[in-house]
C-alpha cells in the first residue's frame, strides 16, 4: 500500500511538531519502567527514614516537606523570578561562549598557522580553574550581570573550544582529499566536510560546557549577586533552612538535565546519518 505521510516543514506547525517530538523523546528515553524500579525505592527510603527517626527530619527533609517548601518558595518568595534571572545569566554566558569558542576552534583545527598563533595561549590559560577567576573578576567588573556572565562564559568556553578543535583536526584526510579533487574551496570544505565531521564533538563539548557553566553560575551567584538560585542557596544556609537548600539543588539539577536533553535532541536531529549505525 502506498500511503503518503506529509510533515509540516515550516512555520509554527513545524515548531509545535519538533517541540512535541522533543518532549515525547525525553519522556520515552528517561521515564522507563527500569528507571522507576531504581527511582521509587530511593524516594520511599528518603520519605520513610526521617519519619521513622533513623535520621533527623530536621537535617534530612523528606520529599513531602521539600514539595511543600517548593510551593511556598514559588508563591511567597518569587522562586520563578530567581530561576529566570539565573537562566538569563547562564544563557548569556553560554551563548557568548559557544559563539566565540566554535569559530575559534574551527579556525584552529583547520589551519596550522592560526593554530600555532593561538593554541599555546589557550592551553596555558585553560588549566586555571574557573573559580580562581572569581576574585579578580569581581574587582575588575564589579558585582553585577557582566561579572556573572563572564564567569559562566569562562566555564563553558574551554570545553567547547577544545572539543571543536579536536573534532575539526581529526577529520579523515581522505574526506578532505576527496572534496579537493572536485575543486572544493576551503570555505566549502569547512561547511560541508569539517563541520559535519566535528558536529558530535562540538555537541559533546557543549554538554561538558553546560555542566561547568552551571558550576560557575552557582559560584558567581554565591559570592556576587542579590538574586538567583545560587544566592537563594546561600541565604538558605544563613537561615539554616535545609529544605530550601534541597529545593535549590534540585532546581539546578533539573536545569542542567533539561539543557543536556535539548543538546541531545539537537544532535539527533542534525546527525540523522548516524541513526542505524
Amino acid at each position: 500500500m502506498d500511503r503518503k505521510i506529509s510533515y509540516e516543514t515550516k512555520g509554527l506547525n513545524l515548531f509545535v511538531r519538533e517541540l512535541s517530538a522533543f518532549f515525547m523523546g525525553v519522556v520515552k528515553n528517561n521515564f522507563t519502567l527500569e528507571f522507576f524500579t531504581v527511582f521509587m525505592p530511593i524516594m520511599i527510603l528518603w520519605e520513610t527514614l526521617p519519619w521513622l527517626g533513623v535520621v533527623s527530619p530536621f537535617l534530612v527533609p523528606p520529599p513531602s516537606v521539600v514539595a511543600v517548601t517548593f510551593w511556598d518558595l514559588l508563591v511567597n518568595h518569587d522562586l520563578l523570578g530567581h530561576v529566570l534571572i539565573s537562566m538569563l545569566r547562564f544563557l548569556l554566558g553560554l551563548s557568548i561562549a559557544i559563539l566565540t569558542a566554535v569559530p575559534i576552534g574551527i579556525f584552529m583545527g583547520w589551519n596550522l598557522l592560526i593554530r600555532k598563533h593561538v593554541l599555546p595561549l589557550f592551553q596555558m590559560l585553560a588549566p586555571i580553574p574557573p573559580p580562581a577567576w572569581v576574585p579578580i573578576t569581581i574587582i575588575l567588573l564589579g558585582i553585577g550581570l557582566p561579572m556573572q556572565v563572564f564567569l559562566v562564559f569562562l566555564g563553558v568556553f574551554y570545553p567547547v573550544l577544545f572539543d571543536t578543535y579536536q573534532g575539526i583536526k581529526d577529520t579523515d584526510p581522505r574526506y578532505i582529499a576527496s572534496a579537493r579533487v572536485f575543486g572544493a574551496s576551503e570555505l566549502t570544505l569547512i561547511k560541508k566536510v569539517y563541520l559535519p565531521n566535528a558536529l558530535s564533538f562540538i555537541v559533546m563539548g557543549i554538554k561538558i560546557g553546560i555542566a561547568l557553566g552551571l558550576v560557575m553560575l552557582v559560584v558567581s551567584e554565591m559570592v556576587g549577586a542579590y538574586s538567583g538560585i545560587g544566592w537563594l542557596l546561600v541565604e538558605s544556609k544563613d537561615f539554616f533552612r535545609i529544605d530550601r537548600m534541597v529545593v535549590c539543588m534540585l532546581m539546578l539539577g533539573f536545569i542542567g538535565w533539561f539543557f543536556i536533553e535539548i543538546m541531545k535532541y539537537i544532535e539527533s536531529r542534525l546527525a540523522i546519518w548516524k541513526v542505524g549505525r
Partner: protein
Amino acid sequence: MIEAVRITKFFPVTNSQGNAEGNTAVLSVSLKIEDGEFVAIIGPSGCGKSTFLEILAGLQVPTEGEVYIDGKRVLEPLPSTRKEIEIYERKYRFLSPVVNDLLKDIPKFDTTTIFQDYAIFPWMSALENVLFALKVRGIPKKEAISVARKYLDMVGLNGAENKYPSQLSGGMRQRVALARALSVEPKIILMDEPFAAVDAMSRQKLQEDLINVWQKTRKTIVFVTHDIDEAVYLADRILVFSSSPGTIRNIIDVKLNRPRNRFGREEQMLKERIMQIFKFDATGEAMDYVI
C-alpha cells in the same frame, strides 16, 4: 595529456627498532599519457602505485620531479637549497600547496580521483554525495539532480539514492564514489583500485559500463589495479610496476580489438605473460620462454 617527469617520492617510516628510516615509494617514474588513452597501472600491493596516482592528482607533492597536465605544472617541486626552502615555506605558510582556493570552488585541473577506500561522506546520502560534487563544479541545482540520478542509475543504485553510506554495502559505497566521479564529466579520471571491493558479478558490469562511457566520451583514464584480468580487459596500455622502490618495470601495449573477450586466447596469453613477470620478481624463477 598527462606528463610525469622523473617522479620520485620519498618518505620516512619506522623500522623494527622504532627508528626512522627512509623509504622510497616511487623512484624516477617518467610517463606520458595521451588524451583519450586508457592506461592501467598494475603491481603488487605496496609498490607505490597509489602514491603515484595521488601525485598525478596533485594531492601529494613529489620529492623530485614534476607532473604536467596539458602542459601546466600540477604542483611546484619541493625546494632543495636552504634559500629555496625559506621562500617556499613563506609562500605556503598559510595555505598548503594542494589547496584549491580559499572561497571560490574552482578545480585546478579537470580531473577527478576515485580512492580505493571509497571516500564518500558518511553525513550525506548517496544522492547528496553526487550533488556535492556537481555543486562544487558549479552546475545549477535543477540540472544537477537529473544528472546525479542518471549516473546513480548507471551504476545500479536506483532506489538507494536517499540511503546514507552506513546503510550501504561496501560495493554500493564504491559505486556511489564512481557515480560521483563520473557525474562531473571530467577530462581525466584517476582511479585507485575502484572495483576492488565490489563483488565479481557487479565488477564485470561496472567494467563494461566504464568501457562504454570511455568509448563514448573518450576521457583519459588512469586505472590502478592489482587485478590482471581487469587490466587486460580494460586498458590500452599496461604499466607494470615493480615493488620497493616503485618503478615502471614493463610497458605492455594491448593491441586487442574491443569489445574484448574475457576468455579469448590472446587475452589469456597476455595475462600469462604478466603473471610470469610477477612470478619472476617474486621468486626469481625464469620461465621456459622469453618475455
